[in-house]
């Protein structure tokens, strides 16, 4: 039914909604301490998964939820969430595209003051929509009239990385690591959606971000700095016929690989797809591929969680051999 795994393509028909039965298995995964930490810390936030995490990027969500649990954060999935909007409309008079994300925001507000996201694209669209709802009275009124709500943008949209940095703290995170990743050379890849527009997202320095580097250091990895970490991955151009997107993607992978990166981490399903798939042809040239994984997958490994939550599947460059070679994954695991 969810025929929108076509990479965040806007699902205008509106037929793609979360199928709760299908996903119950993963959301139920409990932290290893049986929820002790949860009760102590009582960090509990509404959480928006988004469609891709139910299609192409299941491992992103399962590893994130399990890691969050282990760190004492409970992410409560919004009931009846719908499309995040997929792209933020750049035309100032296009308010219709704000309807879907605004509806999500309004319902999240009823559950709490914060909304946690994982996918960079959802984060970007929801946070920017929230900004409009907070600051642009005209468009707010129009959208509210349509969705029959009185939502004023008074929700805080945060990325799971911000929860790790600001609520848990990277120092505390480092102390929770059970399987230190032994200096694994990991290249952070930010892409564009996490960082820009900087004044609206206020996530990190848009030109010289360091949250992923700090995260990697906390896990015991060596963060590999590389010049293409905030360049374009090729984005939606990947959906067009031809080979346009693989050019930028290959530059990103090469810039990380030549500086010694063994793995690339990202928080964007589209980046993950583009960077990984671009190596299909390139593998022939370089001989070595660099697996591209979600930051939460490394996190789950470092926290010593079950390999079942990693959900590596469909990789062009499989992360399995690398992670097994450094002893981060057991030999029998599938990857």
């Amino acid at each position: 039914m969810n025929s929108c795994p076509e990479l965040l393509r806007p699902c205008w028909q509106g037929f793609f909604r979360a199928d709760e039965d299908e996903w119950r298995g993963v959301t139920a995964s409990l932290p290893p301490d049986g929820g002790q930490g949860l009760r102590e810390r009582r960090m509990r936030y509404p959480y928006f998964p988004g469609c891709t995490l139910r299609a192409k990027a299941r491992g992103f969500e399962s590893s994130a939820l399990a890691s969050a649990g282990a760190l004492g954060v409970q992410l409560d999935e919004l009931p009846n969430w719908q499309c995040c909007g997929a792209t933020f409309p750049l035309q100032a008079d296009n308010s219709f595209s704000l309807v879907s994300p605004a509806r999500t925001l309004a319902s999240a507000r009823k559950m709490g003051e914060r909304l946690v996201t994982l996918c960079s694209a959802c984060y970007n669209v929801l946070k920017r929509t929230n900004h409009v709802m907070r600051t642009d009275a005209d468009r707010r009124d129009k959208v509210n009239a349509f969705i029959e709500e009185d939502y004023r943008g008074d929700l805080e949209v945060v990325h799971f990385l911000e929860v790790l940095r600001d609520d848990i703290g990277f120092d505390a995170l480092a102390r929770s690591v059970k399987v230190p990743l032994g200096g694994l050379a990991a290249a952070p890849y930010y892409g564009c959606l996490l960082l820009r527009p900087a004044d609206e997202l206020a996530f990190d320095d848009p030109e010289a971000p360091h949250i992923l580097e700090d995260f990697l250091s906390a896990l015991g990895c060596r963060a590999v700095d590389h010049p293409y970490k905030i360049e374009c991955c090729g984005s939606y151009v990947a959906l067009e016929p031809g080979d346009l997107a693989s050019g930028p993607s290959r530059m990103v992978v090469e810039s990380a690989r030549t500086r010694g990166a063994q793995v690339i981490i990202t928080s964007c399903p589209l980046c993950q797809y583009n960077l990984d798939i671009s190596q299909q042809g390139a593998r022939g040239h370089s001989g070595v591929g660099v697996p591209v994984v979600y930051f939460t997958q490394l996190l789950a490994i470092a926290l010593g969680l079950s390999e079942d939550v990693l959900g590596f599947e469909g990789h062009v460059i499989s992360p399995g051999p690398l992670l097994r070679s450094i002893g981060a994954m057991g030999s029998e695991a599938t990857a």
Partner: protein
Amino acid sequence: MRTGVFVCWCGLNIGGVVDVPRVVEEISHYPGVARAVDYRYMCSDPGQQLIKDVIREERLDSVVIAACSPGMHEATFQSVAASAGVNPYRCEIANIREQCSWPHQNEPGEATRKAIELIQAAIEKVRGDEALSALSIPVTRRALIIGAGIAGMQAALDIAEAGHEVVLVERLPHIGGHMAQLSETFPTLDCSQCILTPKTSEVGRHPRIKLLTNSEVESISGYVGNFTVRIRRKATYVNWDLCTGCGLCTEKCPSRASSTFERGLVKEPAISIAFPQAVPHKPVISAEACGHFTKGKCGVCEKVCPVGAIDYQQQDALFEEKVGAIVVATGYDLHPKAKVGEYGYGVYPDVIDGLEFERLNSASGPTQGQIRRPSDGKVPKEVVFIQCVGSRDQENGYPYCSKICCMYTAKHARLYKHKVSDGQPYVFYMDIRAGGKGYEEFVQHATEEEGVLYLRGRVARVFQDGDALVVFGVDTLSGKKVEIRADMVVLATAIVPASGAKELARVLKTATDQYGFFSEAHPKLRPVESLTRGIYIAGCAQAPKDIPDTVTQAGSAAAKVLALFSAERLSHSPAVAAVDEELCSGCGVCVEACAYDARTLDTRRRVAVVNDVLCEGCGACAVACPNGATRQKNASRSQVFSMIDAVVG
């Protein structure tokens, strides 16, 4: 009342729209008008003579001039009236040009009617005008100058040379400003220190210049001619009266601090003199770095000082100075490092800014003038200069052009070539702005004779790769992406106002623009006067500029100060607010309403009091007073109402 009305044609400016003869005809029948006349140019000599003649013939006691804005010629006509025996405050202007003939060019009939009404209103006003006489205020002929860069020093010297005392306040321990950091200067490539030191030493020894370094202005009260300034001299922990500047202390000091003068390129002793030619040539202890202050341990300088000048107990000192005029010459800073993440500025040691390059190139700098890069001291063979960093950048910096960086970048590239003849300088630019005497030729010399490679385009990113800096840019003329492996990158970062400029403006009660540069009273006609009378601006405090422009503006500010000092007393308009003490309840609403701090409450008598000299006659208090106790001289309630009646009645 015997009022004369003088209607000006202003050539065709008024006469081409308004039917002047008809206006004269109608007005001559208005009550109280003794005679109405018109003339082509009322402000011309014959026009002025006409006014005088009519005043005498008709024995007028008041005049109305229907002409251009009072901003243009009110003073002219007031003095004409006065010279013929009419009190100048009984001379009113009806503005029938800016407020009538210009905006109503296509409706001559309506314009004529409006002109008549405006004149009638002015007649009504003049009917109620009192014969006032100008207020006179004494002038303290002493100037305060804030900032001792080239601008402040030049203004100080000009004023002191003309015979007046100057108090020169500089917040650093030494004078000279940024010019002291420059190596050679465009467009002549003469050594900066060589042209600067004659000025610094003259300032240092001038008998009429009171130099207060390591000092800042804390507060100011008073008004033009009569300011009282409180100045804080920050502790230096060295008694400068005893110190001979021998430098023994700095040789022996074991603690180190990052050198601000060398822009952090080297460390200096915790007690140090910033540079060899510093004026005053006396050391200062940096309390953050000094072992005595941070650990309570060291006392080396105290032991070695042959004259016992070290004084760890020294406290900040507060002074009060009385001055009549103030020149603000606080200069500039450069766009901060943290804001240029894409070029790794502040992260990669070999990405430096223009002033750091000046220090590398300076004979007294950290490398004795050899171009060596900060990371490993290697002579860089490929150097990339990037212009407009933070300037002309709406999104990440400032929309304005910093004006001097095109020139100093060309200078840097040329100086680099002179020292590293086998090196290759590249310059990324947006446009070359070289408007100045000899400037374009200077840049052309760089491109044509000295092999500097100019690439028109922006740089997206600078990245450290091994010991090289990879520069990703674009050359928009060939349409190609460019990647250069450079040894050093020099950023022409934007010129921004000196830190604290906005706070200082608040203390001075004058204005800055949105960036923090001090605002001039008029961008073309009053470029060195601030919006506050008696306060003048010079140099980069007003906007980015080079040394020639800075010196010109400083001289011009000095000339304004001298003009102010040329009289013993100043006159101030008597059309100020007055309080009817019978009606005043002492509520204080007017005190809040006054933007010029001209009103206070006499708490004993519970009435408001006006300081005539501070009052600008704006009328805000009169509007605010709930009791109608405030009266605006020559703009009374009854005057205003009869003016309204004359227009709508």
